[in-house]
């Protein structure tokens, strides 16, 4: 804990030294995926060089090593999010897989007419699994509207929430708008009517401290690759009693206790929800990502991000004809914007030519784009390894792009 120093942090991320189109890379697409510190990259290499073996199976040395490392990673994640038990932490493929697991397993316990509540700012991955469930089970999907400034309509939420609501599945931080939703309040209210809550933390786990016991969410989902870990690994947290009571999602190896053609019994937590050989190296490297985060002055890192977000918004307001998509009072360092009539694709292409990576398009939130009546946005999403100098260069590159296109 020697205080947060962004230059020291940048040295941990080898890719930040890359050049793109002859310019030093400025990576402002952290909402899509984060870059990886060498601690994570080396952990993967070390696993395949020294420990590779299948988990929970062999009696031999390597299998023991791999199993220990895999279970250690589970403990690391559990500690980071302050889960009460490490069995509450399930390794999945990512946020999408985590949400689909809940949609299936909770879905099996629902009846026609039961309601699922989501919001108008959800990512497609927190919309489509529920629509599929509703088609399968006759449940009803309700949607909390989004206000023009990009916050949840809390009055409408109060009206929509009822004893018919069985599950509230809600995004913590909007990937498109950067809005931080008042989830503690939502969770509390949902519990008052007996609904369970799934929190989509894909965009919050890397920006805010997450304490599942304090939040009191019933489920939490996020992806490893957005929190400095590898792709193809994610987490589903669920309260132990709840997970115990649910049927498994997929069948296969590892998730069973006894298999016979007459009757198969399932394994206990967490393996009940981890059918088949898991992404062992991914899980271990995700553990390394959280160990890396824990080694930092995290409060300092998050404070730096907050400073960056404020500075970005202030600098961007100087640009004539700029329009922020999402002006919530509580936002993270993610900013969606449009400039005059310019197409996001054109801006993104010219920024890329100047070495700057941003995301353009609908960000997998088409209903939200429809509400704002826009085809897409340009999105700059920052991480704690970004700098104010990069923001200055970004603004210069953006002004140059606008000049070319106007």
């Amino acid at each position, binding site marked *: 804990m020697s205080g947060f120093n962004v230059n020291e942090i940048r040295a941990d991320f080898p890719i930040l030294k890359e050049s793109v189109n002859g310019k030093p890379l400025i990576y402002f697409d952290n909402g899509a995926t984060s870059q990886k510190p060498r601690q994570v990259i080396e952990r993967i290499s070390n696993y395949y060089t020294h420990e590779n073996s299948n988990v929970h199976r062999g009696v031999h040395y390597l299998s023991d090593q791999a199993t220990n490392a895999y279970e250690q990673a589970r403990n690391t994640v559990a500690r980071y999010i302050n889960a009460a038990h490490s069995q509450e932490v399930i390794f999945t493929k990512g946020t999408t897989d985590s949400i689909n697991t809940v949609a299936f397993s909770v879905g099996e316990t629902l009846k026609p007419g039961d309601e699922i509540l989501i919001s108008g700012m959800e990512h497609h991955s927190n919309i489509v699994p529920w629509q599929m469930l509703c088609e399968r089970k006759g449940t009803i999907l309700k949607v909390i509207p989004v206000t023009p400034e990009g916050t949840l309509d809390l009055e409408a939420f109060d009206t929509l929430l009822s004893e018919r609501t069985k599950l509230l599945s809600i995004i913590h931080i909007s990937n498109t708008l950067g809005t931080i939703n008042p989830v503690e309040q939502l969770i509390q209210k949902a519990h008052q009517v007996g609904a369970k809550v799934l929190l989509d933390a894909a965009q919050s786990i890397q920006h805010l401290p997450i304490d599942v016991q304090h939040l009191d969410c019933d489920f939490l989902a996020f992806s490893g690759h957005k929190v400095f870990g590898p792709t193809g690994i994610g987490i589903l947290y669920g309260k132990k009693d709840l997970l115990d009571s649910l049927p498994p999602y997929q069948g296969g190896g590892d998730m069973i206790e006894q298999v016979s053609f007459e009757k198969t019994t399932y394994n206990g937590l967490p393996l009940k929800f981890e059918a088949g050989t898991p992404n062992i190296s991914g899980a271990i490297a995700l553990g390394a990502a959280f160990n890396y985060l824990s080694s930092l002055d995290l409060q300092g890192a998050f404070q730096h991000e907050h400073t960056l977000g404020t500075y970005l918004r202030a600098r961007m307001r100087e640009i004539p004809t700029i329009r922020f998509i999402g002006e919530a009072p509580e936002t993270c360092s993610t900013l969606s914007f449009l400039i005059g009539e*310019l*197409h996001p*694709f*054109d801006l993104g292409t010219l920024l890329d*030519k100047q070495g700057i990576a941003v995301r*353009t*398009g609908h960000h997998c939130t088409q209903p939200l784009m429809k509400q704002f009546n826009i*085809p*897409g946005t340009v999105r700059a999403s920052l991480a704690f390894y970004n700098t104010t100098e990069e923001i200055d260069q970004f603004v210069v590159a953006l002004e140059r792009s606008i000049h*070319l296109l106007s």
Partner: protein
Amino acid sequence: MSKSINQIQDEIIEEFAMFDDWMEKYEYIIDLGKELPLIADVKKTEDRLIHGCQSRVWVASEMLDKHLVFTADSDAIITKGIISLLIRVLSNQTPEDIVKSELYFIGKIGLQEHLSPTRANGLVGMINRLKSDGLKQLTS
């Protein structure tokens, strides 16, 4: 006699060789893109729309004296600029020549990134559409 597809491609490659850096190149593409719509608004119908992920592209074609004539448009200026180059190459050619053409100029002028599937800007879809319109004429 009108120019062949490859003659036009070589012409474009020569024009682009004059540009020193990406700025000049894109300025030129953007200028092409800012020109008047290349397709009548009434023809911007759903069946003429090529669904790219980000920018929308419309393409129409009609046979005129054994040659296929293309018009097209896009809501993104850079896509539109590249489209106008494509139209310059492929429009007013015979369906046979269009179908068997090999579009090497895009790579040669350094725009190959616009053909990558991740750009998803409708350009690949547009080339496929131009060629399939040619093929339709051949098989009808």
